[in-house]
């Protein structure tokens, strides 16, 4: 399932333009602790976190994260969006909380993989 398909189906807000929309999402991870993400996130994942500090991009780059989803419409600084574009990491946002977004995403990815 591509990031673009996920964005469309869940109606996510895209903060980084066309970046990575045609990339295939294989897996996902939810955590706000960077060491936990570094140790456990799989390649080609979508990462749900309320962390919005510029450091999340270093973690995302190192782990080949395709997209970061920010819940509850939390604000993201322009500097972070700019850097994300440079690094080729998509940043998405949604009004729902991390629990709801994760549930929806999990079901979508499972369904797509079972096809």
């Amino acid at each position: 399932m591509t990031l673009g398909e996920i964005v469309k189906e869940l109606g996510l807000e895209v903060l980084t333009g066309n970046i990575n929309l045609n990339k295939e999402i294989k897996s996902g991870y939810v955590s706000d602790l960077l060491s936990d993400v570094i140790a456990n996130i799989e390649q080609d994942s979508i990462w749900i976190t309320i962390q919005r500090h510029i450091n999340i991009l270093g973690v995302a780059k190192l782990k080949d994260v395709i997209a970061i989803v920010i819940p509850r419409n939390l604000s993201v600084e322009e500097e972070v969006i700019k850097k994300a574009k440079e690094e080729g990491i998509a940043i998405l946002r949604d009004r729902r909380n991390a629990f709801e977004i994760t549930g929806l995403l999990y079901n979508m990815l499972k369904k797509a993989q079972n096809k």
Partner: protein
Amino acid sequence: MLNNSFRFTPHITLEFKIEEKDFFIASESASRIKKTLQQLGIKQDIIKRTAIIIYEAAMNVAIHAIHGALKVYVDPEVISVVTEDVGPGIENVELAMKEGYSTAPQEIREMGFGAGMGLPNIKQCSDELVIDTKIGEGTTLKAKIYLNKNHE
């Protein structure tokens, strides 16, 4: 004798300076070394583990020490990751190795660091780990990852 010393000369040495609160250098250097190892055709699992060790060790210097350096040696049989820092040192290494133990201040935790998972992650990813530390002086961490050894 000369032969001997040649045998232990690293094939590739990569070095990075780490300044206080430089949160970028850990992921930058880990990403750069990851690329180098990929070009060398090193196994995916080894690259993954090496990158985690580099990130966590360098981040610890940036967060907990004053300044330091990261050195990575790539030899035919082994990758060595070394961080040396000038800093407070670690009072109780055994305690520091425990998952969840952290002395990171609140503002650091708010950024998502300070879970107390860095050293346990490093331990888990390395085949050998040595930490030398002196209170009030600094810490040296050496981790080895063997290229042809099963890691459990």
